[in-house]
């Protein structure tokens, strides 16, 4: 290692051994790659679980799996997708792109960065090993509501420790991102010149450090209720199970914004590039993001309108929730206004970004429907909710991530991906994802409850359509892996700027980005930044 450090001023030097390169790495690009690959693996694992769910629901009746295993699948699918796929993908993109976007040589705390990532495999080992333990994985849904979550086997302890590890990983990642953005910006890169992806991540990181510890507290209370005789949530001992729902959703609602704000950032990068126009209302976008983050802390009980809340509380949470539509509407308006009279082209990242804007808005509208208290009594815990959050998470968060991956992939690999295959992937995914989730709105309105392995024959047709869409969407993601694999090996050589309309520091470094960049801070030229002129 001594000689290794001594030669570190050689700018393109990468550690040669596999362990040195990946296990002990402190390089933001390598750690970013690790996060992204990890997230892709977890996306496929969680997707496989979704395929089990859709296969069982293909027809009414119990065909393939036991109801207990079905419940394990719904629980694990959610935990794997949220904590294993979506969040690590955003952290991976942050690791790769934030230092490049603000002209920093690396993250502020590179060793902590390494630790943040390498906690994840251990966390997911603890979580996934419960599938083969006696009693099986937890079956109470990802929300782990007591008393149900405490009535299962000892696997709940594994799940809780896994959540603790994921929480520590997220908190360290968030601290690192905040320190990087606050301290490592190149001279001249003022806060209000930063690209929006960096901005949304700064706000997301504050959400993470504010709520992940609350989740840690909530699951710790579950743990002591189960194993150490406390009665936080145990009615027999004077506790209150509804309290858990409040504490959980105090974490849970900011968490859903943690999973969407970075996607807002990615879309705000892509739409100006392919419209060849600056983003409309840059400052409004920043303030809208901050407003959404603030509002996310004061609306949590809209997830639990049916627990028996006083009317005053229901009214407050209903109106506060609807208020979120205002800053979100500002964002959607600005994206559309950015495209207005732009010189548009429709490469794959732009297609995914447009798909995001349209389909995320559909999910946003069904969210508003759910916010209406009297209507929510009908929608609560039905497939309408499932359809709603899959529109915002799959066609929202995941489409945002895919848009970002296609957008920045040439910068990572140095090769253009195959545009034709990218477009096939987009249309294949978009059509199938709507076949998959749109009918679930109708199922929910007709009264089909979520988290059930069997259902009334009246729901048979829409479930079959939904399952067919599910299998097609699953297959499309296997195809996505092929597109990525192909683009990582060969293709048309990417230029430094990659996209004709791309602006910002990340497009000034060579493609592929060398192992070390911005060792010397870049000179900031406002006219070459995406948001250099703050007056526009």
């Amino acid at each position, binding site marked *: 290692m001594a000689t290794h450090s001594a030669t570190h001023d050689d700018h393109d030097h990468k550690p040669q051994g596999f362990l040195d390169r990946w296990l002990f790495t402190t390089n933001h690009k390598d750690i970013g790659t690790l996060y992204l690959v990890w997230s892709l693996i977890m996306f496929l694992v969680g997707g496989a679980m979704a395929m089990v769910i859709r296969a069982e629901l293909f027809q009414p009746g119990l065909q393939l799996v036991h109801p207990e295993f079905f419940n394990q699948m719904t629980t694990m699918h959610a935990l794997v997708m949220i904590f294993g796929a979506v969040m690590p993908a955003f952290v991976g993109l942050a690791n790769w792109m934030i230092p490049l976007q603000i002209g920093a040589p690396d993250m502020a705390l590179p060793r902590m960065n390494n630790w943040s990532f390498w906690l994840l495999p251990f966390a997911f080992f603890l979580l996934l090993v419960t599938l083969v333990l006696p009693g099986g994985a937890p079956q109470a849904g990802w929300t782990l509501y007591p008393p149900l979550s405490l009535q299962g086997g000892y696997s709940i302890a594994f799940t809780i420790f896994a959540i603790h590890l994921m929480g520590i990983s997220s908190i360290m990642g968030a601290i690192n991102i905040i320190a990087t953005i606050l301290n490592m910006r190149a001279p001249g890169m003022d806060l209000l010149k930063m690209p929006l992806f960096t901005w949304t991540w700064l706000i997301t990181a504050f959400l993470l*450090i504010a709520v992940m*510890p*609350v989740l840690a507290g909530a699951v710790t209370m579950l743990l002591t209720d189960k194993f150490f005789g406390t009665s936080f949530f145990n009615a027999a001992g004077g506790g209150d199970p509804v309290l858990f729902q409040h*504490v959980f959703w105090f974490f849970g609602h900011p968490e859903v914004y943690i999973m969407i704000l970075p996607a807002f950032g990615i879309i705000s990068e892509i739409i100006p590039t392919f419209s060849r126009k600056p983003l409309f209302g840059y400052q409004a976008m920043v303030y809208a993001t901050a407003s959404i983050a603030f509002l996310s802390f004061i609306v949590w009980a809209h997830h639990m309108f049916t627990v*028996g809340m*006083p009317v005053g509380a229901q009214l407050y949470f209903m109106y506060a929730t609807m208020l979120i539509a205002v800053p979100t509407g500002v964002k959607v308006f600005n994206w559309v206004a950015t495209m207005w009279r732009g010189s548009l082209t429709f490469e794959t990242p732009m297609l995914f970004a447009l798909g995001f804007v349209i389909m995320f808005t559909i999910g946003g509208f069904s969210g508003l429907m759910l916010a209406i208290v009297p209507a929510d009594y009908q929608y609560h815990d039905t497939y309408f909710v499932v359809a709603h959050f899959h529109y915002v998470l799959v066609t929202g968060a995941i489409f945002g991530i895919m848009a970002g991956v296609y957008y920045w992939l040439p910068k990572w690999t140095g090769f253009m991906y195959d545009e034709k295959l990218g477009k096939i992937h987009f249309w294949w995914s978009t059509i199938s994802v709507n076949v998959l989730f749109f009918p679930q709105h109708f199922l929910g309105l007709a009264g089909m409850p979520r988290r059930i392995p069997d259902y009334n024959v009246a729901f048979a047709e829409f479930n079959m359509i939904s399952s067919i869409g599910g299998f097609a969407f699953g297959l499309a993601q296997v195809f996505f892996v092929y597109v990525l694999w192909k683009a990582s090996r060969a293709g048309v050589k990417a230029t430094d700027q990659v996209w004709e309309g791309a602006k910002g520091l990340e497009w000034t470094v060579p493609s592929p980005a060398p192992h070390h960049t911005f060792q010397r801070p870049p000179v900031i030229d406002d006219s070459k930044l995406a948001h250099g002129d703050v007056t526009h």
Partner: protein
Amino acid sequence: MSREAANLLVVRRLLVVVAAAFFLGFALVPLYEIACEKVFGIKLDGAGVTASEARAMTVDPSRTIRVRFDATVNSALDWEFAPKHRVVEVHPGQLTQAWFTATNRASHPVVGNAVPSVAPNTASIYFNKTECFCFTEQLLAGGETRDMPVVFVIDPAIPREVRELTLGYAFFLNDTATRRVVAADVAATPRS
């Protein structure tokens, strides 16, 4: 300030936020109780009032409130549990006694705890118990049946639109106390 020092400062400050957030998670437990009782007027614990406080309330004979009783037993507890009467009609301020009957179906002593709840929950602060089997652990010997009283008074300040309310009890198994009783029994049995 060097970059290292600046980074360390950010980390220290953010760790304080993390610690505060972790603390907040636990602080939500008492905050929840305060919010329920002081802001929304929902009584969470079944704490009673003294008999003299109850007698100090003036009876309002002009109003009659129908009180329904509900009894459930948690699946972990092998008991039968039911109210003697399903419904009584009372005047606000009038001290009333009602009886519930519990039977231990198991052949060994079991301790249970009853958790009360009043619906609608906004009426719960006006519903006062001076005496209740839910205040203490209930030990029933194997096969024993016992009648258990609850004495209550409805505060005459209760809003006029409340004409009917439900007092529900759920009996839960008290594991720890049951183990203690079994252990004491074994210790008290003279060895032959």
